[in-house]
């Protein structure tokens, strides 16, 4: 049994060491894409924080199994043809119960936070008044954005004032598309016969030319033009937005 204890302690040491390496990656001491970066909306902060928390929890889970496999490869390796047997251990009920209990606790934790709390944060504006409404129409393979309060409509770009709580009403004229702005971390399908909606609050300025994540991209396969069904997104100051609105040609009648 003491041999087993020695093995267990060694594996735990490997586990801790691997976890530290994992965290070095996760927290950016080593440059990787392990975390989401460059969010540009209030909602993106919620998503990125959830992603960060899941990563914090995932690292030790990943390294625990990895530690056993690596240690096994180092210490339990046997050569020759398979004939000599290992110990006849069929189960270890206390350890199994502990494992299941721990995974249940972890699972419940993740369900509550960031699970349910995250959903509630993203829905904070359900039924509330917002600062700006944008109607987004999709059709193979273009986006039309219409600002009902300003009586303008364009398919060239989506311009938004920073800080404005913006509700997008999304519709489709033909097949299913999906409204996605990567920098805002918001996505909702455009479904024929339905109006779907999503709220985003841009919290910093930016544009597609500097950051590829500032784009309104179709995220649901819709046919031959799917990959290029994308328009630039530009988040500007309130004053710049007013200027931009004034430059647009008003549509004669408000769209549907």
């Amino acid at each position, binding site marked *: 049994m003491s041999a*087993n204890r020695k*093995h267990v302690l060694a594996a735990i040491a490997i586990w801790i060491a691997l976890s530290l390496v994992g965290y070095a990656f996760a927290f950016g001491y080593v440059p*990787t*894409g392990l*975390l*989401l970066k460059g969010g540009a909306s209030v909602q*993106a902060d919620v*998503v990125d924080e959830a*992603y960060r928390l*899941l990563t914090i929890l995932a690292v030790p889970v990943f390294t625990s*199994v*990895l530690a*056993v496999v690596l240690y*096994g*490869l180092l210490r*339990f390796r*046997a*050569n*020759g*043809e*398979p*004939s*000599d*047997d290992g110990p*006849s*251990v*069929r*189960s270890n009920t206390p350890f*199994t119960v502990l*494992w*299941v209990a721990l*995974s*249940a606790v*972890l699972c419940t934790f*993740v369900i509550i936070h*960031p*699970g349910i709390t995250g*959903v509630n944060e993203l*829905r904070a504006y*359900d039924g509330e008044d917002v600062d700006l409404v944008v109607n987004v129409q999709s059709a193979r393979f273009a986006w039309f954005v219409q600002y009902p309060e300003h009586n303008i409509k364009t398919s060239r770009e989506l311009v938004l004032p920073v800080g404005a709580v913006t509700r997008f009403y999304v519709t489709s004229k*033909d*097949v*299913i598309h999906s409204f996605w702005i*990567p*920098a805002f*971390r918001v996505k*909702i*399908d455009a*479904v*024929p016969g339905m109006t*779907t909606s999503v709220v985003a609050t841009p919290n910093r300025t930016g544009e597609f030319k500097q950051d*590829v994540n500032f784009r309104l*991209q179709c*995220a*649901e396969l819709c*046919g031959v*033009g*799917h*990959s290029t069904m*994308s328009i630039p997104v530009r988040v500007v100051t309130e004053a710049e937005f007013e200027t931009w609105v004034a430059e647009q040609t008003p549509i004669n009648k408000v769209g549907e």
Partner: protein
Amino acid sequence: MATLVAMSNIIRGLVFAGVGLGLGIALAILLTGITGEPLAEPAIALGYLLALIGWLLGVGVWKTWAREWIGLTPNGANETGWNRYFSFSTDHKVIGIQYLVTFMVVFLLGGLLSMLMRLELIDSGTVIMGADLYNTTMSLHGIMMVAVAVATIIGGFANFMIPLMIGAEDVAFPRINALSYWVIPPVVVLLLLTPLFGGFDSGWTAYPPLSVINANGQLLFLLAFITFGLSSILGGLNFIATIVMLRAPGMSWSRLPIFVWSVFSAALISLTATQVVALGLLMVVLDRVVGMSFFAAEAGGDALLYEHIFWFYSHPAVYIMILPAFGLWLEILSHFSRKPVFAYKWVVGAFLSIVGLGFIVWAHHLFTSGMQDFLHIPFMVMTELISIPTGVVFLSAVGTLWMGRLHLKTPMLFALGVTFNFLIGGITGIYLADVTTDIHLQDTYFVVAHFHYTMMGGEIFAIMAAVYYWFPKITGRMYNETLGRVHFWWMMVFYNVTFIAMFWVGTEGAMNRRVADYPPDLVTGNLIVSLAAFLLGASFLVFVYNTVSSCVRGQIAPANPWNAKTLEWQTSSPPPVENFPIPPVVTADPYGYGEADSEHARFEPSIETSPAGGGD
């Protein structure tokens, strides 16, 4: 001439199929003549339906089966020699090989398509093909690999091994078993013909309205998928009946090899869930061919409805794929660690929990679909609960190899590879079960990387483990161990580079999936993915060379090269037609490693035998 004799069943099937096709088209001409509808789609649908029936009758259903329906004597004798692989054989070992060879070919073709996709995606802009062809290539890759994932283990390995492992002579319904294989060639032919009919650009998910308004190739896809579903339903039925009824005397449920449990669990899903997707696909066919409007909003239909029907099958379907892979993984870990499967009964419970939970998580594919908001949290909760039984399977894996005698033969290397890969696949699944993170990650390369970690890193690695593990049993020859290890390390390294880089492309560049083109900023990541993918693809050259050359020139295999205890190793390699010259009587479970005098089964000619499950 000998070839012609061997192919006579196939030729008869093709002739009958041709007659059926002609009749179907004639019928379509007649009907559209009356109604004035366009001819193409009705001609394809009716022509295929009658061609399928003709093919099945010609290839063997008439000779060995249907004759008795009208009072004639069927010719039920199985062919021998090479002919049997081209015949409507009812021997489960022949059918297993038919499945394995067919799906290995489909797998390699599907892999070739992925190479074309990665070539197109190596740079921004058009490299080798336009978006239309890319979409068809991507869609074909998807459905072919899904078919490989569903059918290779259950149709191939389970067919060959389950009767052996439970000590039976064959499956419960040998003719249904043959039928479930012989509907597969039409599926493959239909899929390969789609590019000639304008291709199909809706992926393997075929969401309407896109799948209703696109080219005729889509109809071929739908008919192929429905036919494949029929095969899957019949297979599920057969394995449930076989495992319930035909276990050898003494083979109680708690003595079943864990692989048998995993196939049993998967068969429960494939029998029940597949019917639902067949219905959904049929509704799309009717929307296209007859002009119904189940999914057309402008005529009162509902596009979202299809997504629910589709995923009601297609999420459980991933467990049809992965549960048998779990079984293989634990089975091989046990025999090559020379230790019992750890926490066996917990694992059985975990498998059955996954079957149950698997049915009530489908809408996690729909978090961004516009379905009602109140559904998000329940489906997130159900989905995350699956991590608990999956954790039990991992507990079993690490518990099994802990303190074992690890023999790192090729099958064991692949099983350890599953441990690593599926771990990444499982953990990244949590990010997609969480509504908040899924809203962003849905339909990005993060998802592509995730499901390749489960389906390829988990299941395909398990399939590779099984190919090497059972190669001696199936072919009677040993594979080349050195080449096997080269294949493993080559595949493992470049597999991980390819798909880790894909996660990065999905999160760092927010690249969405199923795109033929992407902004120039994302070139670096895609270049890494493409180059690694080519090297990953090349690793299969080693695999093909090793398996093909070992089939011909490999050393003659002994009955039990791994000194394993399960029943399939207690008969000759390859096994005789009747499997066991003397039927086994099971006396203990097959995991008695480290126990003195442990014996899984006894072979004594005097003992009166009747199947454990059969009362009469």
